[in-house]
């Protein structure tokens, strides 16, 4: 299985090359594009990026593993991220996490994350990256039904 960018993404890559003083700056944008395209970053994608940027495979791999949002395994389920940091915890994030585990654990991968910058809407979670704030069991049901 080899990796290549779609035609649309290949055009994007070409335009990105003009925006940075060195090709190396494209590591994060290219990893993001690969993940958007395939839902995760495969070894083949890392090889492709490494060859394209003329950087060691290990460099790309080490960058990909440093950032928590990059997924190196193909996700089996949709992702829910529940914020667990202080303002959310003070407003009941633990209950929200249990409610999700008990009712939606089969259909979603439910993980806890650190502060998402939504403290005024605590407790909060994201579903497929989209923010949902001021959560209650009822509002969660409406989002997830």
């Amino acid at each position, binding site marked *: 299985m080899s990796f290549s960018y779609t035609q649309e993404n290949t055009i994007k890559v070409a335009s990105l090359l003009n*925006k*940075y*003083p*060195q090709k*190396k*700056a*494209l*590591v*994060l*944008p290219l*990893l*993001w594009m690969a993940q958007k395209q395939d839902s995760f970053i495969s070894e083949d994608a890392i090889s492709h990026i490494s060859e394209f*940027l003329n*950087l060691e495979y290990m460099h790309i791999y*080490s*960058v990909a593993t*440093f*950032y*928590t*949002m*990059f997924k190196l395994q193909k996700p089996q389920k949709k992702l829910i991220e529940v914020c*667990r*940091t*202080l*303002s959310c*915890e*003070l*407003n009941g994030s633990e209950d929200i996490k249990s409610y999700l585990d008990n009712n939606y654990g089969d259909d979603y991968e439910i993980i806890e994350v*650190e*502060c*998402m*910058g*939504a*403290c*005024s*809407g*605590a407790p909060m979670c*994201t579903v497929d*990256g*989209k*923010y949902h704030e001021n959560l209650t069991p009822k509002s969660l049901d409406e989002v997830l039904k």
Partner: protein
Amino acid sequence: MITKIVSKNFEIPNSHTMEVALENGRYSSLKSLFEKEPQEIIETIKQSGLRGKGGGGALAGNKWQIVNDWDGTKYVVVNADESEPGTFKDRRILSLDPHLLIEGIIATCYAVSSNISYIYVRGEYEEFSDVLQAAIDEAYEKNFLGNGAKYKVDITIHRGAGAYICGEKSALLESLEGNRGHPRLKPHSPEPEFYFGEPTLVNNVETIASVPFIVQNGADAYRAYGTEKSPGTLLFAISGNINKPGVYEAEFGVSMLDYIEKIGGGVKNGKKLKAVIPGGASTPVLPAGLLKDAKLDYESLKSIGSALGTGGMIILDEDASMVKALKNLLRFYHHESCGQCTPCREGTSWSDKILDRFLAKKATKEDLNILRSVSKTMNGKTICVFAPAASGVIDGFLEHFEAEFLECIV
């Protein structure tokens, strides 16, 4: 008590679109901008006393001067990696008034003779970053940006991918160069930051968004707000056990308790105030008893043993467990340590684990001693200020709420 400079357009419907932005004064500072020489703009920013609004509070004008004076291709990098727990203000600017940020970037680039700007937005803020990108596209169409503009500026959004430490400016630049977000060693004498070896200015979103007001109205108009040493306003934020959590702009120097009562609507459920973490998780906690005369400015909070930080207050009510709160924060530090320096990587990990024993009420006297000693080892012995911040957090909780920790010792 609310004073709107940066947040002036936040509540106007469709404030993020070019049409509404133009109707409400956006880009009108460019006329005053181009009438002046770049150095005059830098002088105005210096006179205004504008301080960095990302947490550090360094004087912006001085940073601009250093970048301006350094030879090379100049870059302006906007730090939108907002990840400090309790802080959610920059997100408002990105999604509610992106044209104000773009206007500020144009002025900043003009002042320091840069034509290229990057906005580093935390990966989680994708939907807000999309709004910003649409605004940038509109600004190109209207020739505020790009080759057709009066002064050429190109703006590129660079998406982070989930690493708190990339909010540290040198880690941010490492990330922007395509590396792991590891902070760099700090210089002994003043120098700019460097992007691929070229002189670079890194400023927070809100700092840049404050620039158009100063360019248009002058330094004195900005100094009319706030205090002598902390002039102007800040997008203070309030969350936790509070009735009206949110972002509300106010002058520096207002009373913290007034802000909590009058703007934040007081502690939730009629409970008593126990403590406030005043400026994001990295600022030491303050017990209610110390807050009588506390003012929301850099000097006042420093004088009572904490810091203004990002101005993002987390309110803890009388029922809050301080052991649990510290555990929450140390888990955060453990998770977000970049792992580069041993005292931080090991210290944040061990202090997090020790707190588990306190939470289970199975701690020993020795655990408390180890916690204090780990805190000491983390302070001042690492490349960046992440570990010293964790250390300050531990010391703050132990100084003011030691009794609660002693209750957890068997």
